[in-house]
């Protein structure tokens, strides 16, 4: 059993379309999205329409909650004034360009999705199982903490997004945590690729037999130049366009821990 897990799309409907095609080519058994359909990129309705067209079950991210309920900000949890300045530009743009029908759709999304795969308990959430906008970075999340989350939330495999960077860690008893990354913007690695995850579950379903599943992170190439053109045409900040074209984050970075920050350019 193989599942395609998409993280934040951030209005990058071109990357989402490419990822759906890639997942179908791989013959996955299901596709899921972990939330944050909006932000950053152009034409929010196009992403939501793809999600609806392919009936992709989707967790409600902080962005989806904010846009759905027409709140005043994205609840991303940034703390730096410059980060918040840029976050607000994306948010105002996304809110004013999301149709009422699609806002209603965003309100219907669940805060988490639970699956039973070969008897193993799979939890799909946005930030963390306990908080939609909690950032689970690889370098600031202890294994003991992940063990506690798995225990408290009764899950053998936990999948999250929200940070923009993909990583995974094996836990005791074959359990696992993975941040599936995002389709919305590159992973601050100097390439224009974006990422999603394919989780493969074996049929044994017993703890003694090894890990719940293996997770592969899949890079996606898509027409990022076209996305950049459309972002410019929509009057979105040149800082965002630069990220799409260079693969380096230029905004919303003060939240990055030391190790993750060091890997980037800025």
């Amino acid at each position: 059993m193989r599942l395609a897990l998409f993280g934040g799309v951030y209005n990058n409907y071109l990357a989402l379309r490419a990822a759906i095609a890639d997942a179908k080519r791989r013959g996955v058994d299901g596709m899921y999205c972990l939330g944050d359909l909006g932000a950053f990129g152009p034409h929010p309705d196009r992403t939501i329409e793809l999600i609806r067209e392919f009936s992709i079950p989707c967790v409600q991210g902080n962005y989806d909650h904010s846009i759905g309920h027409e709140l005043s900000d994205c609840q991303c949890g940034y703390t730096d004034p410059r980060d918040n300045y840029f976050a607000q530009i994306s948010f105002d743009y996304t809110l004013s360009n999301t149709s009422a029908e699609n806002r209603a759709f965003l309100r219907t999304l669940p805060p988490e999705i639970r699956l039973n795969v070969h008897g193993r308990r799979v939890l799909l959430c946005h930030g963390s199982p306990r908080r939609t906008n909690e950032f689970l970075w690889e370098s600031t999340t202890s294994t003991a903490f992940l063990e506690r989350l798995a225990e408290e939330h009764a899950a053998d495999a936990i999948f999250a997004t929200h940070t923009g960077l993909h990583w995974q860690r094996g836990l005791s008893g074959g359990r696992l945590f993975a941040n599936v990354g995002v389709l919305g913007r590159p992973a601050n690695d100097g390439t224009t690729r974006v990422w999603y995850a394919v989780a493969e579950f074996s049929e044994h379903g017993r703890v003694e037999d090894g890990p719940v599943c293996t997770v592969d992170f899949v890079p996606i190439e898509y027409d990022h130049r076209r996305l950049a053109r459309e972002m410019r045409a929509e009057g979105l900040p040149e800082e965002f366009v630069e990220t799409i074209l260079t693969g380096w984050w230029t905004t919303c970075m003060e939240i990055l821990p030391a190790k993750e920050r060091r890997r980037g350019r800025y």
Partner: protein
Amino acid sequence: MSVRATDRACDAPLIGLSSLDELWFQVAGTRCNLQCAHCFISCSPHNKTYDFLTLDDVLRGLEAGQRYGVREYYFTGGEPFLHPQLVAMLKATLEVGPATVLTNATVLKPEWLEELAAAEQGSPYSLEFRVSLDGPCPEINDPIRGAGTFDRAMVGVRRLVEAGFLPIITMTRTWDMEQDTEIVARFREVLAQQAGYTRARLKILPRLQIGAEARRTCGYRPSERVTAEMLEGFDRSHLLCDHARVITDRGVAVCPILLDFPDALLGRDLDEAVEQPFALCHGACYTCYLHGAICSNPAVAGTRRGASAGQSDPATDHPAS
């Protein structure tokens, strides 16, 4: 020794621990090589109110921390680098989780930093340095932190940068808020020029009007307190005491801010202290309420599921070290 919720002198709202996410070590006690005029626990070379922790205290803390599923560890004082075993402590921490150390950067030795950089490289976890420096020039910083401290701290920042770290520079705001942008811009330039630090991470913190700072300026007015009404609908995860405890040589405290108040000590050990709620009856609690978990790195500040981000700026950084 701990003041129980039932015999407290004030009727402030109680806050219990919702989850032990951060474990702090008051590793240098109240001992510091500096004696800043705004230090909220009045640290100095002679203040022995709290003493050093031993390496063993820290190792036991890390063990308990793992039992509780602690996410991140913090080291503070006083000046943590006065402790001869701090490097060993940080290395042990990086084996089990992320570590942050709050320092004034005036006593850093390049060989320690090299050793720590190697340890961090071999760990999946970040080692964060938070350097307290109270402005972009000696004219603003030195009257508060002491003559010559700006230049000495800049040497420390340069050493950190040379060792490959990206320290977070935290400034306590002693100017008008409108000047923030200008101060930050000036500081960026100065850090690039004088410390070779071109990707500076900067945070501005509010003052905590207790300890030496209460004597320097003024304390809190009696009306500046957290009330039960204020907590209605408030996301408590913005307060450090909601998800942290501090190991000191005198027991376990509710937060690193209130160490001078006897009620801050909640138990002899962690098991005792996690059970104890705390009455938010101090003026400093009011600052936390307004500004969020000022002591934590921003990554941990967030809101619970479904709750609105609301409340001002949810986190900045450490008040003083």
